[in-house]
């Protein structure tokens, strides 16, 4: 019997657990550890944040499903890793602390034969002074509860505009090296859509603030797409989207501090500037969860498992090299830890070898650029590939890692909602193939120009809406869920 422990029940972790239970016999034990009992379909947080969906529409309780699938579920969070065990327990284990009300604070050792760390990012609000959602005029859409609060705050601002008071909405990145620009981009477009739908646009200034060197960078160095008889850059695409809506922007900005009425940022020119606001939704920096790892004598071996940002080291090439020498071969394919081959880290939990966008520093030496995104589709694929490799290892006894998924080979699709509605809604369907540009394979544009696109239109909204129901259907393990691709 093999014991497989999955940390995290998000896109990567839940996908891995689903395929493990489907393909392994009942003699093997699968345990999922997650601090929340809910699975949430994060991309739809955007619609919760503008009141078009409720939190209950985008999440569900995992416990009945795991019970049906005979997966053990622990409502707890991982804290420490003991990949060699310790003096008492002579096998690899992870120390968890329960978060459920009945057992809150209780710690337990969970032994494993295989460990999947799919704990995603720590939303590092503390890295930016004053950036705490739910305080003052600051919102977030990173979780369903944040998005619910964002909608409450947005309603207050809408009421003020209805009473004739002008409001400034600032949305974007809240840390000099934040990622996930796509989510903020969607939110600003949806907020703008809701303001216009209510005829309040004359009373709203909507401003995009970003650490991107140019708009449309999205942490992947931008992309080339075919548009109107030209091959153009996503910079033009993103700017055009904003110009069409009278949204203005501040780029190359590293937000350092925020108080109730002002955002303080430094730009690449090294200037320290301020922006007034009445409503701000700024994506925080992401980091690892601060896990510690120990060997069997109790010595700290965290450096073997985790990179400096706290994310887990995998089969990437972490040798520091200049931007010009970066290649797709630096990117991991199996998400296996090099020191402990029975530990894997799919999804945002793995430490990327470097960013995809070119790292930039301000004249004062502050790094200001978008770090590498790892969106839902690649995270799901990584979760599946990890499960497939573990299944093959258990069934054959041979750790050959035949299943591979590199961000330098796989593509990603991100449907950027820009307004909700079956006839009046709109979204830009953005695809890149591959995520990390491969200049050897595609010397002209870095990516497959036929499968890298940005197309605005009503069809995009239908797609995003259909994906919401389709991916929740899949996550709920309804009949034939496995036929739905990641």
């Amino acid at each position, binding site marked *: 019997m093999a014991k497989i422990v999955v940390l995290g029940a998000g896109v990567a972790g839940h996908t891995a657990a689903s395929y493990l239970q489907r393909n392994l016999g009942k003699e093997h034990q699968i345990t999922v550890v997650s601090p929340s009992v809910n699975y949430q379909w994060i991309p739809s947080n955007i619609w919760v944040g503008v009141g078009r969906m409720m939190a209950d529409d985008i999440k569900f309780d995992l416990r009945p499903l795991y019970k049906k699938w005979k997966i053990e579920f622990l409502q707890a969070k991982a804290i420490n890793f003991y990949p060699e065990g310790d003096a008492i327990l002579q096998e690899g284990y992870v120390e968890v602390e329960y978060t459920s009300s009945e057992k809150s604070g209780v710690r337990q050792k969970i032994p494993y034969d295989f460990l999947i760390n799919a704990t995603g990012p720590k939303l590092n609000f503390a890295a930016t002074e004053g950036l705490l959602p739910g305080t003052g005029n600051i919102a977030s859409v990173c979780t369903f509860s944040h998005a619910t609060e964002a909608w409450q705050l947005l309603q207050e601002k809408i009421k003020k505009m209805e009473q004739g008071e002008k409001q400034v909405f600032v949305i974007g990145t809240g840390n000099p090296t934040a990622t996930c620009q796509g989510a903020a981009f969607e939110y600003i477009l949806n907020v703008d859509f809701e303001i216009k739908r209510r005829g309040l646009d004359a009373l709203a200034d909507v401003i995009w603030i970003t650490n991107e060197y140019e708009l449309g960078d999205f942490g992947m160095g931008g992309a080339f797409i075919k548009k109107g008889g030209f091959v153009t850059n996503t910079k033009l695409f993103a*700017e055009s989207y904003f110009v069409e809506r009278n949204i203005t922007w501040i780029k190359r900005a590293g937000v350092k501090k925020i108080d109730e009425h002002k955002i303080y940022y430094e730009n690449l020119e090294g200037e320290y500037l301020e922006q007034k606001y009445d409503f701000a939704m700024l994506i925080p920096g992401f980091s690892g969860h601060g896990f510690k790892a120990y060997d069997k004598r109790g010595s700290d071996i965290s450096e073997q498992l985790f990179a400096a940002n706290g994310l887990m080291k995998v089969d990437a090439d972490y040798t520091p090299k200049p931007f010009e020498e970066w290649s797709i071969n630096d990117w991991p394919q199996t998400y296996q830890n090099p020191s402990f081959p029975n530990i894997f880290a799919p999804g945002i939990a793995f430490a990327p070898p470097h960013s995809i966008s070119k790292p930039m520093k301000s004249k004062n030496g502050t790094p200001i650029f978008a770090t590498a995104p790892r969106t839902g589709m*690649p995270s799901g694929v990584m979760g*599946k590939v990890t499960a497939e490799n573990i299944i093959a290892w258990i069934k054959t006894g041979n750790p050959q890692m035949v299943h591979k998924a590199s961000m330098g*080979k796989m593509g990603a699709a991100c449907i950027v909602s820009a307004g909700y509605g079956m006839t009046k809604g709109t979204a830009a369907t953005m695809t890149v*193939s591959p995520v990390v540009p491969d200049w050897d394979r595609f010397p002209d544009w870095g990516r497959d120009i036929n*499968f890298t696109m940005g197309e605005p239109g009503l069809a995009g909204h239908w797609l995003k809406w259909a994906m919401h129901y389709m991916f929740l259907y899949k996550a709920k393990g309804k009949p034939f869920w496995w036929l739905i691709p990641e």
Partner: protein
Amino acid sequence: MENRLIITKYSDQYYPPSPTSFTLFWRRFIPFQLIRFFVLNWKIIRIVVKGHT
């Protein structure tokens, strides 16, 4: 486009292309968007399937 009138000249916002009413029409024209819906679906599925081995 009327948006241009309120954009300060020589600012970043002054230069990017704005969609014409013709372009906006196609973005909302349901029969055309239905076709695009299927085309986009096919492209996305192809990307997912080809992305891993």
